[in-house]
């Protein structure tokens, strides 16, 4: 296996709406930020991969417009995933493992403001038995939350505490959409209150990956990806045990999370209840700093929020605030798909 690291990370300020910006206009500043941080130019990037979804924009092939922002002419080696950018990062990591690339630019963006995101997300569900009922994303998360409460894994006040801790942590994150003292609010779909749900907003993020000595040359303290894996569960909600996340557990095992303790966890848990599930699956104790960025409860730009978890974990390693971090991204209803990566600073690398 080649040693691959995240060497730069940038994200936009996440906002409820960005009407004045097209997607490429929103994206370009973060692309320039990661390129400037490494001194690389587009011509020095071997592979580019992005994550986004046409359903957010309501337009086909919307990612091709965003390509203008990376300077795609003369031709570049490029790919796209119609999902969170964390999976674009996985593809880029695989590309580097093949030896066909030493550097990669990964970016992701989503503008939720043009549509009704709760309705839009119903379109990712099974089209025969589920999507015709239009169960929105909050409703499905609420079913999972009630199952956790019934199982005795949490209660409503514990959920509120998770949301409060996340937004307090986000006070130190200038990019967060929601931070500080945020009221628990009314039930949106009971048992989830407004405060248990992520803000809806627009945003983008980018990272640069590099292999071996190239990474060391580009970054004083690269965040080495020591393991990365992603797994998926059955699409039928009634087939799954919603209080558990076996896919997260398996991905974490394969990524090596349990080989040594981690000090930081960036978890993609858009709903407070999902943090309960993920902590259990990853075996995280109170000694681990969970979502010091505020996590998805503070900013949840769809298709970028998972990549941001990897970026935030890497940035803590860049800054010397973490030695070994676990980063997690999710997609689909009730944590259906999960990606887990272990990031380490140089000193802990044997």
């Amino acid at each position, binding site marked *: 296996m080649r040693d691959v690291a995240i060497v730069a990370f940038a994200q936009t300020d996440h906002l409820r709406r960005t009407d004045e910006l097209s997607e*490429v206009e929103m994206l370009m500043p973060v692309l320039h930020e990661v390129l400037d941080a490494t001194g690389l130019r587009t011509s020095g990037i071997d592979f580019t991969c992005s994550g986004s979804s046409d359903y957010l924009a309501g337009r086909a092939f919307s990612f091709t417009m965003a390509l203008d922002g990376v300077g795609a002419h003369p031709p570049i080696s490029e790919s796209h995933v119609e999902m969170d950018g964390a999976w674009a990062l996985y593809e880029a990591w695989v590309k580097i493992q093949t030896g066909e690339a030493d550097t990669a630019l990964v970016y992701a963006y989503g503008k939720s403001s043009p549509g009704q995101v709760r309705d839009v997300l119903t379109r990712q569900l099974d089209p025969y038995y589920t999507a015709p009922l*239009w169960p929105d994303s909050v409703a499905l998360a609420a079913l999972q939350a009630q199952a956790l409460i019934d199982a005795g894994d949490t209660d409503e006040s514990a959920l509120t505490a998770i949301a409060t801790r996340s937004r307090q942590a986000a006070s130190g994150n200038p990019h967060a959409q929601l931070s500080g003292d945020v009221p628990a609010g009314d039930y949106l779909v009971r048992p989830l209150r407004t405060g248990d749900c992520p803000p809806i907003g627009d945003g983008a993020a980018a990272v640069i990956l590099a292999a071996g000595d190239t990474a060391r040359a580009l970054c004083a303290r690269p965040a080495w990806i020591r393991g990365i894996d992603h797994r998926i569960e059955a699409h039928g909600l009634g*087939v799954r045990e919603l209080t558990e996340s076996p896919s997260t557990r398996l991905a974490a095992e394969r990524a090596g999370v349990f080989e040594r303790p981690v000090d930081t966890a960036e978890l993609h848990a858009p709903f407070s209840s999902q943090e309960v599930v993920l902590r259990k699956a990853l075996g995280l104790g109170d000694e681990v700093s969970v979502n010091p960025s505020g996590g998805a409860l503070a900013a949840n730009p769809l298709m970028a929020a998972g990549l941001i978890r990897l970026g935030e974990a890497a940035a803590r390693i860049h800054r010397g605030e973490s030695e070994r971090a676990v980063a997690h991204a999710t997609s689909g209803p009730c944590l259906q798909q999960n990606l887990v990566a272990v990031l380490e600073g140089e000193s802990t690398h044997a």
Partner: protein
Amino acid sequence: MPDILSAPLVVEFPFTRSLGPVQSAFLTGLRERTVLGVRTGDGKVLVPPVEYDPVTAEELHELVEVAATGTVTTWAWNPHPRRDQPLDTPFAWVLVRLDGADTALLHVLDASGPEAVSTGMRVRVRWAQDRTGVITDIACFEPYGSEPGESGEPAPHDGEFTEPVTGIVTPARLDYTYTPGRAQSSYLEALEDRRVVGERCPSCRKVYVPPRGACPTCGVATDERVEVGPRGTVTTYCVVNIKAKNLDIEVPYVYAHIALDGADLALHARIGGIPYDQVRMGLRVEPVWTEGSRHPDHYRPTGEPDADYDAYKELV
């Protein structure tokens, strides 16, 4: 900074989906007030049924009939129903394990309020009046004070019905408010004054029209506005012989790439005012605007001599 334009954007997609044998039997069954499940190799009964075992990926086809009564395994109270959801009064989302099944079905429960709903409560299917073989043939569930009884044993079913449902149409509509961003807004606003405005890349100096805010070569923002045209040169074209639905243009007609004077990227538009078989590369054209329209309706010949090939060959 121009005013930011916005416009409603409606996306509708009525997908027609074909059903496999298991889905066909299940949905046809609903039409006939019969709930079918499928038995897996290890004896579990999955409702709703799937064609492949989610654990072993084994193909499944052994159908069984389960009861129309069941138990709520988890629920969530929805105080504000959204468009297209099954009930328009407040309701509970529920996962229901029907008597005889080992897995739960997602649907909605008609109840008076959240205090009337609990995990473990007994419910039964309320059938829709008109049933066609879709999941909403179950109108909803309703509270039902029964105990899981002898009806809990699934009975073998051959899945055969007269006139089985073999496909469904799943209409969907999503509503957006489209905002084109800074660069395209200023382009569209200039069009209102019948001017065409592009943007110049600060790095390579190329002028893009319509501008999208970024130079695809340099990957930087294009922010210097440049008025181009209105005249231009046909760089390439095609003859359209297919009459488009809802388009009131006689075929054949010519669709062309046009390099407006001063632009480094060709835009595309229809050519009019000249027989289709006389359009040619190098033809000089100008826009024709119609009353009340933001965009030129088409471009027509200016009567100038054709442009020299060298003048536009970079834009072909």
